[in-house]
């Protein structure tokens, strides 16, 4: 089966700034595809290129095997998207906004479908309120309803958890998982919250300074042995000597007098703690970073990593 999205050598510059550079990736049907990168890495620019909002300088986008530029209108009818914030017409009600964008979707969408998507996103009962009175979480939900209303195969969600409180983030996670599992949507999602992506993505790509760093299935990319464990210590003169002669020396990823970062499976943290205490080192705090976060940092943040 051909991929639902395929990009080939996408390039985009704004003046002298190269936002995206020779970016190629593929997304399979049914994937929840995490799109990761630091601020300014080129995620939003790429997502906008997938939707025809920004024109690439060179390269191509294929949706279901058809080049985007050759069939823009038809392909957009198969996609639902939220780019950055889900901004809508604040002076209109949620219902009016949903109705307007449903009418623009090239499909004859009736009121029962509008009620259905409001139910899915949990906005039933609030649809007559003006959008300007909505909380950020409600706006995000309405944005998803607008993206979903025409039953697209593919959802492109750029930072859908932006501005949400922890409860809102958890609810959004559940919503995205249900859209994938129960409604069979393919979802391309970007987020700063790596822990969230780790919990929902089946595949992912990490881009850095507009270039692809890595792409693949989350299970195969995230090795627990590559997690980072940070140990905050009371600085002592002999700490380097003790570490140099220890079995953990090869695991050290970064060293500062008051903090040592080990690259290791978090399951071994208790043993590490016992060894530190036995060596007479005063442990103030031990924290393990989530495997995706550690992996992401190892690929995109040179200053943290020893090698």
């Amino acid at each position: 089966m051909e991929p639902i999205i395929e990009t080939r050598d996408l390039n985009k510059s704004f003046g002298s700034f190269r936002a995206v550079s020779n970016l190629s990736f593929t997304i399979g049907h049914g994937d929840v595809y995490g799109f990761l990168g630091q601020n300014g890495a080129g995620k939003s620019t790429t997502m906008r290129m997938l939707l025809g909002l920004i024109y690439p300088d060179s390269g191509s986008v294929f949706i279901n095997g058809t080049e985007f530029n050759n069939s823009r209108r038809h392909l957009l009818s198969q996609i639902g998207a939220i780019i950055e914030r889900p901004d809508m017409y604040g002076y209109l009600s949620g219902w009016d906004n949903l109705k307007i964008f449903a009418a623009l979707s090239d499909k004859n969408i009736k009121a029962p479908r509008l009620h259905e998507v409001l139910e899915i996103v949990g906005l039933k009962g609030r649809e007559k309120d003006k959008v300007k009175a909505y909380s950020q979480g409600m706006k995000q939900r309405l944005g998803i309803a607008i993206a979903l209303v025409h039953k697209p195969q593919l959802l492109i969600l750029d930072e859908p958890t932006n501005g949400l409180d922890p409860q809102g983030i958890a609810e959004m996670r559940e919503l995205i998982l249900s859209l994938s599992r129960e409604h069979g949507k393919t979802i391309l999602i970007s987020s700063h919250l790596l822990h969230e992506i780790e919990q929902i993505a089946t595949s992912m790509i990490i881009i850095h300074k507009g270039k692809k760093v890595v792409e693949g299935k989350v299970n195969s990319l995230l090795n627990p042995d590559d997690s980072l464990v940070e140990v905050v210590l009371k600085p002592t003169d002999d700490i380097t000597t003790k570490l140099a002669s220890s079995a953990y020396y090869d695991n050290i990823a970064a060293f500062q007098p008051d903090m040592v970062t080990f690259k290791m499976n978090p399951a071994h943290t208790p043993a590490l703690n016992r060894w530190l205490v036995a060596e007479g080192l005063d442990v103030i705090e031990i924290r393990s970073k989530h495997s995706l976060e550690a992996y992401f940092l190892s690929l995109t943040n040179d200053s943290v990593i020893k090698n």
Partner: protein
Amino acid sequence: MIQLLRIELYKIFRRPRTYISFGIITAIVLVIQLAMLSDGKSFLSFIMSGVNEQFDIQGNVLNGYLVTYIILQSLLIHIPLLVALVAGDALAGEANAGTLRLLLTKPISRAKLVLVKFTSSVIYTVLLIVWLAVVGLFGSLALFGQGDMINLKSDAFVMLLQHDVMWRYMAAFLFATLAMTTIASLSLLLSAFADNSIGPIISTMGIVVVITILSNLELPLFDKIKPYLFTTHMIGWKGFFDDPIPYGAIGFSALVMFLYTVGFLATTIFYFNKKDIKS
């Protein structure tokens, strides 16, 4: 396209600020009408002092037709501003609100979107002119009554018989609609370049004011370009109150404004089709 236009009109007329323009026109017209009710006779005797020495004018000179003419002259700058408030906001306002990117992720062509924005701006303009006709012309006729209309020009004095005036106003309003459509298309073009509405609205007014000054400057340097400036032709509606009516000049003015409108619109579509939506 019809569906898109219906949605656009729904958005415009559900927005409270749309009605501010209608309120402003009503307020300005009422102020002028009240002023004319209060001091109209002394104002009229002042501007007609030269004429009264040579002619004996009888009947209701301070009538609704004359007051409407005074109102229209007073609104020369205001109406373009009110048109720019909506047309300048058409694309830039959506960009500023963040709704443009949501709109363009839907299966609609950018050219169609521009055409719909233009058409809705024209419909708004027509309604604004119709409202001006209602409160300005019919309101003045109700307050001041009918009569023969005196048109005082710098070098002539035109007397139009009462039964010969109404159609001239209708033609003048039609011409004004074309002139304001040109303003709307200019505003829409500037709106395509911007990501907030203030810029296009101010720029439209800046351009109108500067070119109007150029159109009115009696300097030989500008004589050759004046016939091609759209502001020179925006006051072509006054021709309908001449005798005989200069149909050739009015037709040329209409043609120039029509060509400007088409040019502005085509440029907007061309630019907007290529624009990266970063807002």
